[in-house]
């Protein structure tokens, strides 16, 4: 240790490329101003109501119904996308057909299309007098202005996440694995279930959780189609807006904090689940 004291301290970084302090300093300050300080306000403001006050807000029937709808509809939408996203990714990676590139580009449309536009377009389609709405009405199904409408909108916004998470892994998947399974006598369903699915499971879980997280917070594409009836079709983000319009800032923050905490807990659970599923020796 005495050696270190006698020789002049030099720059500590392993690499002596320039710009470390400048870039890291700017990054940290910018991130603090734009993300950290505002989020701190979200975390601290609700407690103006006191712990009991926050509890009352969060457990009020209207808030509970909204959280239940947001998380429930998001889970259903994520499940639909898990299946359909897998099929579409599979088709895109494994099949050659005319229009493949177009289909590939279309997947990203929900990313690129502003949510308000998606919202009014979905509403026009599924409203009782819209083309799909009319058809569904014949079966006695009401899509728009019902929880089903919320699920439809959330399925729309979450779809690209699953496809884009699974696609690259499916592309890199060693076709030798499947060929080996084939030579060992596995039929196509066995190959899919026993060889392909385990290999892409981590990516699928990632994609589905991204789709779920996006859906939980989604606002623009839902509020037009949902009907926004308190206790029935009111999503949690909308409830925040309602509280803000009532100038109940602490109440709005409490709902926001509850949403964030729930998402965070679910994320932790998914991570834990993924770690459990990662059997030793299975590689990454």
């Amino acid at each position, binding site marked *: 240790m005495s*050696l*270190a004291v006698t*020789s002049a301290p*030099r*720059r500590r970084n*392993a*690499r*002596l490329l320039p710009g470390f302090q400048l870039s890291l300093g700017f990054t940290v300050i910018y991130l603090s101003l734009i993300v950290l300080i505002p989020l701190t306000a979200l975390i601290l403001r609700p407690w103006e109501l006191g712990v009991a006050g926050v509890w009352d807000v969060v457990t009020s029937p209207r808030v509970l119904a909204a959280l239940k709808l947001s998380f429930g509809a998001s889970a259903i939408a994520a499940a639909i996308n898990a299946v359909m996203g897998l099929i579409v990714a599979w088709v895109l990676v494994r099949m050659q057909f005319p229009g493949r590139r177009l289909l590939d580009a279309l997947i990203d449309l929900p990313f690129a299309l502003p949510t308000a536009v998606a919202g009014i377009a979905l509403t026009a389609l599924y409203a009782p007098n819209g083309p799909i709405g009319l058809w569904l009405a014949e079966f006695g199904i009401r899509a728009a202005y019902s929880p089903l409408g919320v699920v439809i909108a959330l399925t729309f916004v979450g779809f690209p996440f699953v496809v884009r998470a699974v696609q690259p892994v499916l592309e890199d998947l060693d076709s030798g694995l499947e060929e080996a399974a084939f030579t060992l006598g596995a039929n196509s369903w066995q190959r899919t279930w026993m060889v392909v699915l385990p290999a892409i499971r981590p990516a699928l879980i990632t994609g589905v959780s991204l789709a779920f997280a996006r859906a939980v917070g989604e606002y623009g594409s839902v509020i037009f189609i949902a009907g926004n009836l308190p206790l029935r079709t009111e999503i949690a983000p909308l409830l925040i807006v309602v509280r803000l319009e009532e100038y109940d800032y602490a109440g709005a923050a409490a709902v926001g904090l509850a949403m964030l905490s729930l998402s965070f807990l679910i994320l932790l659970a998914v991570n834990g689940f993924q770690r459990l599923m990662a059997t030793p020796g299975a590689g990454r």
Partner: protein
Amino acid sequence: MPLIIKNISKTYGQSQALHNLDLEVGDREFLALLGPSGSGKTTLLRILAGLISPTTGDVSFDGADLLSLSARERRAGMVFQHYALFRHMTVAANIGFGLRVRPRRDRPSAEEIKRRTDELLRLVQLEGYGARYPSQLSGGQRQRVAQARALAIEPRMLLLDEPFGALDAKVRRELRYWLRRLHDETGVTTIFVTHDQEEAMDLADRVAILNGGKIEQVGAPNDIYASPATPFVFDFLGAANEARGLVRDGELHVYDARFPLPGDGSGEVKAFFRPHEVEINPADGRGFMAEVVGVIARGPATRLECRRGDQVMEIDWARGRLPDGVTRGAQVRLAPERFTVFPAGT
């Protein structure tokens, strides 16, 4: 000695990459840093280039402190292991880069840069390749572009980090002699990092052998080969057999045989010998007894595996047909022509 490295240590967190290392490199010298991966040779090279700083120690070049200069001020021409060519620049732009980024008052004119670039392209035998991009070149050509780019800044020393590491064996050998000729032409002090002992022995004026962040031995290739300073050096420079032995009265006792060993000293030793420096004698001949457990014909030489107790030794027989009676299961006597001994416990 223009380059003097004194007491250099480098610590990464808990692990120490270099231990109080001293080394001197002469003017116009070609020095190879040879060692297995993780021995610290690349770390030392990057310290000289200014890409990392040592934890302690000093380096001086021509009497001036080198460590106080930033990497861009050192004019150390570095050739990276994977060449690090600028992928979006042509070969000519790559080579001229070091001249173009000089401060305005030192910057040569555009014509001068072009002239120098052409000259370097000729030097590395890549005339006509100036307009190509690195991705359009073979590995060997990329290596030479990297060399030319490093030479363009008229470096005070050249630092080569496993420059042939990514090439196949044939190209490696061709480039090896080319690099030596280039050094003889340009005369730039060169430090060359490699883990390939043959490459180091072939190319360098002197070889420094690193192990675990310390220098085991420095010297001319022949001297090191003839008198390795440590068991590690002996082992690293080629295939080796090891036996326990005892030195007494000018003789080396190995198993049931005695061999003359000039010099004084006595006590228990580790005795090493090379697989190709062994005489094979019949069971009543000279040497220690061993059993032949394997015979493998390998082109010009025959590889024998012989066992003595739990020790398996490799013998390379390159003198025509095997002596009569040397077959699998036979008892033979082995007489190494030359031993290198180290005190036991080293």
